[in-house]
């Protein structure tokens, strides 16, 4: 029987199998950041264990960093301490760190792919659940807890039970205005937030084949929101073209050799999956969430379901929405374009395409947070900074920002925020904040109009 993409990468990394137990999986690349690494460094220190492979670790500062005045000392003493700890730990152990202000600094899941650190066929981990992003390249990439960060520090390996396999296939033609974010929000709204728990997901079908690498990253990023530890897309010419020439990508003959290996990775035609879902691209529309988990999503012009269970009612009460109503015309005072889901250059290009020549609505506070310094550079080079500034927006500096609101970028209590991030949990963007997840196009339109508008009826009609 044939093997899946996941099987091929997994099997190539199994060091050993414990009888009646887990397998030891070798980890190629370990990404770390300031929030989930300090306790792991402490753990090794306390036990007197050295870091096994510092050259396979890359660090960035992103979760707990300010997005203004990054050239000045960080104001919050706790945040500053966490950043200093990361710097000290990296210096002590010889780990490459792209700290604040570095030309390669950025959100861990934005900066690693753009530097060519992420490659097909790799195993990658990070103490962050959105590590699934890197699966867009056909790598096995998943989030881990801090105990596991310590395990990888100590052994460059993890003890794991092989997950089951899941495939989500979307074929057909996407309608105008439907972005990769809408595709994944639609999938999660259909199968729920725990359909993928215990599984590793592969996305297949022409919709994903036709997507750019950045679109694929948006999709794989949100695999964890349906419970799947990771999501993967078969590497193809789009993948190879993206990687070629990147700073840490194999060069010359090594690249050609790598590509010939990467070409063997896609799932064999006779491979089978434990679970499969199929969707038609024509059924997908621009999406919005109305509740407090990413599975509570509807098409932009749909009505919120009438009734549901206690958890549903609790979510609606929190969001101050009524069952059976529409989200269209809801006044929105906050818009966030950023996060590891949607802060890459294509996201800002699509937002700029709507914004160009218009003016931000006076009621809207819009936070535009590029994913990395490299994205900032691209925005400058393409003249997009000017487009946004002319429309009344200000661009902030890179970081996770209002996606998890660890820094000062918090949405005030009771306010709605149309956000391109990945989670609409209670209080995720600040205590009492109400998040509506959407694509960068819908977010941009909201910022201009000051309320939710049906983009399928306006610009796209």
């Amino acid at each position, binding site marked *: 029987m044939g093997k899946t993409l996941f099987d091929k990468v997994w099997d190539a990394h199994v060091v050993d199998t414990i009888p009646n137990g887990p397998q030891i999986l070798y980890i190629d690349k370990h990404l770390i950041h300031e929030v989930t690494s300090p306790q792991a460094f402490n753990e090794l220190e306390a036990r007197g*264990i050295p870091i096994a492979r510092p050259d396979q670790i890359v660090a960035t500062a992103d979760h707990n960093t300010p997005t203004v005045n990054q050239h000045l000392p960080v104001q919050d003493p706790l945040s500053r301490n966490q950043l200093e700890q990361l710097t000290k730990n990296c210096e002590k152990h010889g780990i490459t760190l792209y700290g604040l202000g570095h030309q390669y600094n950025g959100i861990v899941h934005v900066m690693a792919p753009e530097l060519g650190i992420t490659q097909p066929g790799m195993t990658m981990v990070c103490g962050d659940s959105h590590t699934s992003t890197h699966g867009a390249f056909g790598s096995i990439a998943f989030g881990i807890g801090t105990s596991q960060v310590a395990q990888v520090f100590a052994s460059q390996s993890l003890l794991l039970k092989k997950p089951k396999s899941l495939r989500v296939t979307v074929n057909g033609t996407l309608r105008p205005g439907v972005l990769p974010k809408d595709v994944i929000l639609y999938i999660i709204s259909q199968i729920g937030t725990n359909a993928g728990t215990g599984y590793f997901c592969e996305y297949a079908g022409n919709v994903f084949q036709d997507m750019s690498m950045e679109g694929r990253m948006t999709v794989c990023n949100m695999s964890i929101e349906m419970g799947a530890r990771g999501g993967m897309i078969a590497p193809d010419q789009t993948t190879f073209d993206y990687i070629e020439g990147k700073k840490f990508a194999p060069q010359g003959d090594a690249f050609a050799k790598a590509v010939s290996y990467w070409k063997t990775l896609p799932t064999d035609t006779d491979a089978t999956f434990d679970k499969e879902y199929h969707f038609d691209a024509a059924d997908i529309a621009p999406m919005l969430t109305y509740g407090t988990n990413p599975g509570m999503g509807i098409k932009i012009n749909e009505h919120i379901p009438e009734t549901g269970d206690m*958890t549903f009612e609790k979510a609606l009460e929190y969001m101050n929405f009524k069952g059976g109503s529409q989200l269209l015309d809801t006044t929105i005072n906050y818009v966030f374009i950023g996060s590891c889901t949607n802060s890459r250059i294509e996201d800002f290009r699509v937002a700029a395409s709507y914004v160009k020549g218009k003016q931000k609505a006076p009621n809207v506070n819009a936070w535009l947070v590029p994913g990395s310094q490299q994205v900032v550079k691209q925005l400058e080079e393409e003249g997009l900074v000017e487009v946004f500034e002319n429309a009344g927006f200000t661009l902030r500096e890179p970081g996770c920002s209002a996606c998890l609101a*660890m820094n000062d970028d918090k949405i005030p209590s009771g306010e709605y925020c149309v956000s391109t991030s990945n989670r609409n*949990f209670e*209080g995720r963007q600040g*205590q009492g904040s109400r998040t509506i997840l959407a694509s960068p196009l819908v977010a941009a339109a909201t910022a201009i109009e000051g309320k939710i508008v049906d983009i399928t009826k306006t610009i796209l009609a």
Partner: protein
Amino acid sequence: MEKFTTLTTTAIPLPIENIDTDQIIPARFLKATDKKGFGDNVFRDWRYDAEGNLNEEFPLNAPQYATAQILVAGDNFGCGSSREHAAWAIAGYGLKVVISSFFADIFKGNALNNGLLPIQVTPDFLNQLLTCVQENPKTKITVDLENQIVEYIGIYNEQIQKGKESFDIDPYKKVCLINGYDDIDFLVSKKETIEAFEKERMVF
């Protein structure tokens, strides 16, 4: 890691589904660089309002559940962020076991790595258990890890209510919990095997 064998205690009912790790420990409390003190802020925004007033209706604040060491929660517990701070917060609060009908993967692993036992039961058993604990906070729950059995006994409606169910656990993780071992020791002991693998692996 602390050893876990058996436990008999009362439980706190939290009949809410999809409890995510942002609720268990909000991001603004993740700024520490050690593992201490997270228990003080477990379920912070459900236990307190924005002004810092105690929400007396929230089960963790109810005096009748004050000595409980088990949390009984709705389906899909621990979804969302990979923050291990969620497991540290629950364990730091003094809880030893979480019972639910479904757990998110990363939370489950994090809990096991911290001696906090996640027990997955059937939806029917969970409903019966939740009802019993809500009707009578003195309901006793016994967890026997060696035999993988969870049972409860309580009285309400003037009748004895009880139930029993076996639960699954990875055999390796079970040994770790019973003996207080963790994965780091094991992986470090496999150093030679891992280094031999490294020599053979493909690197570009």
